[in-house]
């Protein structure tokens, strides 16, 4: 008995979701790897064809359950392009802020899961504890912890509650302190460095070839970040740096994500200052009633029902916490989208699994896969 296949999943503490990593091992060495997906395929693209435009937002929250707001944003951007509707400026800022909150929440969740894979027990609890603060902020302006249904075609559902910006500033201050503690627990530990340095290396050329994006790509030396390269919503009006590292290993991914969280805090602080001084509407006028928008102009409900809505195709791409997500929405003039197609960053990052797993040990699988940051919901859709 020299080589054997083992199934890690669908029920395995390493997977953090519903997928199966089949690895071929020789002793403790990985010889081959083949991820098997689809255990959480819920047919979101098909169901979307039976839904109104705003009802698809409900599915988006569940599509990626750790970054629901980013996916709402992605879908809404594509739908707005397909329907030729533009949101007001304040809504764009609020969306950007929600996006960055979601990045913080998702990265904190990643931190919690990643350190647990390494055997660090307490930081898992710390990550979850601090993520709850972000969720509290979400709860105060969307009413939900994870499934928000907040963005609408043409804007956002409601404005921020009074006193929100002060609370958010307090949370941001607290988080910046905690990031120091996280670094002390991880980078300050020799065992952590010994385990993570030089692990799961993927070069920049390989990343581009295999379609790997997001923090994994930026940890390999690229500075590609759609927020800078192809700004959407309010990102062109905000100051931030792109986090990047060169090594392309697990430590580099850790460093990139931690730096991204710091940059998110920086972005959020700028937006909070802007929001304090720029009140205004958060929903575009002249949004067709059948989109289900709560703020459709009174007396003009049938504004566009009488004629068919102009056809169009929408394409959007955003920098989601896991990487680069894209949506392609085809509007054929009906009440429902004709076809919705999503590109999930996790889908592409996972398809390269063989390239960053082979040659390492079985014990390296959890940290490597943890550093990829997997959300099976968006991968399987």
């Amino acid at each position, binding site marked *: 008995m020299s080589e*054997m296949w*083992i199934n*890690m999943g669908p029920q*395995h*503490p*390493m997977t953090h979701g519903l997928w199966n990593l089949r690895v071929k091992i020789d002793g*403790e060495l990985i010889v081959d790897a083949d991820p098997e997906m689809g255990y959480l395929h819920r047919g979101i693209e098909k169901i979307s064809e039976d839904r109104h435009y705003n009802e698809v937002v409900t599915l988006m929250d569940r599509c990626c359950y750790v970054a629901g707001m980013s996916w709402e944003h992605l879908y809404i951007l594509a739908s707005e392009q397909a329907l030729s509707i533009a949101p007001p400026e304040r809504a764009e800022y609020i969306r950007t802020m929600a996006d960055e909150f979601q990045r913080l929440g998702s990265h904190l969740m990643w931190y919690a899961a990643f*350190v*647990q*894979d*390494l*055997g*660090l*027990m*307490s930081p898992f*609890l*710390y990550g979850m*504890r601090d993520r709850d603060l972000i969720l509290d902020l979400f709860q105060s302006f969307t009413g939900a912890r994870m499934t928000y249904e907040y963005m609408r075609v043409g804007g956002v559902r409601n404005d921020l509650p009074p006193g929100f910006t002060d609370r958010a500033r307090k949370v941001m201050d607290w988080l910046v302190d905690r990031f120091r503690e996280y670094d002390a*627990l991880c980078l300050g*530990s020799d*065992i*952590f460095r*010994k*385990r993570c340095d030089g692990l799961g290396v993927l070069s920049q050329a390989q990343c581009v070839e295999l379609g790997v994006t997001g923090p994994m790509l930026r940890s390999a030396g690229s500075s590609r970040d759609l927020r800078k390269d192809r700004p959407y919503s309010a990102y062109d009006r905000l100051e931030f740096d792109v986090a990047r590292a060169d090594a392309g290993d697990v430590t580099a991914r850790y460093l990139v994500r931690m730096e991204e969280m710091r940059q998110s805090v920086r972005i959020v602080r700028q937006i909070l200052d802007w929001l304090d001084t720029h009140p205004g509407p958060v929903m575009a006028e002249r949004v067709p009633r059948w989109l289900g928008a709560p703020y459709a102009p009174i007396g003009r409900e049938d504004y566009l029902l009488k004629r068919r809505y102009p056809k169009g195709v929408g394409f959007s791409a955003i920098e989601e916490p896991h990487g680069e997500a894209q949506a392609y929405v085809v509007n054929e003039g009906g009440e429902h989208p004709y076809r919705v197609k999503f590109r999930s960053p996790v889908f592409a990052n996972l398809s390269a699994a063989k390239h960053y797993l082979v040659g390492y*040990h*079985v*014990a*390296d*699988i*959890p940290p490597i896969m943890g550093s990829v940051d997997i959300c099976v919901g968006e991968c399987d859709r």
Partner: protein
Amino acid sequence: MTVTLYSVAQSIAQAILGAIASVLPPAGRGVASAPVVTGLAVLLFAAILLVASMLNTIVLIWFERKLLGRFMDRRGAMHVGFAGILQNFADGLKLARKDTVRPREADTLGFWTGPTAYLVTSLILFGILPVSSGWNSGVLPLSLLLALAIFSFAPLFIFVSAWSSNNKYSLMGGMRSAAQMIAYEVPLLLSVVAVVLVSGSFDLTTIVEQQQNYWYGGPLLLALIVFVAAMLAEMERIPFDLPEAEAELVEGWNTEYGGMLFAFFMLSDYVRALVGSYLVVLLFLGGWTMPTWVPSTLTSFPLAGIVWFMIKTYIVFGVFVWVRAALPRVRTDQLLRVGWNRMIPLALLSVVLAAGVVYAKCLPVFGCVPGLGG
């Protein structure tokens, strides 16, 4: 004469046999003779010891859960009993009632005897390690060697049960466990050699009694560090808990075990943790003795030795829990490399240092080594 556990057992045996002898006809009076009393006292002592050790272990699990909870900014078990102290009894009872499923392809003999033997060998240690004066002095002149020999039985039984569960994760866990324990056996024993050199005895009681005013943990600090690290590996706790590394091997070698057999594993793990803490206290922290400058009211109440011993044990175990809460897990090859390349040279160095201590006899801060005939 101070009250010890053995004297308590002896007086109970005396009382019982005396009562029996008083009602028996004269021909049966012999039951109260000295050998019979001693025999019954030993049996009673063993029974008390077993029950007390089991209870102690269960309280130790509770202690770890609460302490770990505090390290993690939460509370741990709260619901059952006062501050959750009955939680582990509930766990144990529940596991006792659950079915034990044996996989069809598993090896029957190994599957059942592995955990049982693991628990039994762990429990035997409680009979060997003295926790207060007058425990088994003179009976076991090589008690330290015997304890360490039995302590290192465990990988065999872990491997037996892992192999016979017929599960790939179990098998890998068992392999890792065997490799790890063999690697860490050597530095563990070498660091004990340092203590033996200084004390000149393999008898734990003698070793402890010499430490009353001279805890070996001070001059033999290096040996203490090596011993604690090796003991962490032997107990399979984070950062050396590779055999049951939850992230990659589902539950390690006890993946296929449920119900009572899993409870055996769980209990044995903590029995071994307790024994490990015992050994640290016995070899390096003065055992049940307290320095003579401690007021005698604090050291002369009944069972004072056991109380002090337990306090020290729980402090040592608290350090183990702290380590568990703060460190990530190492990798197998790193673990073995550290074991063979770092720990063994350090352990050898600690032996040399111990020889130096013996040669110098008196050190500036720590004072003179007792029991060297000087």
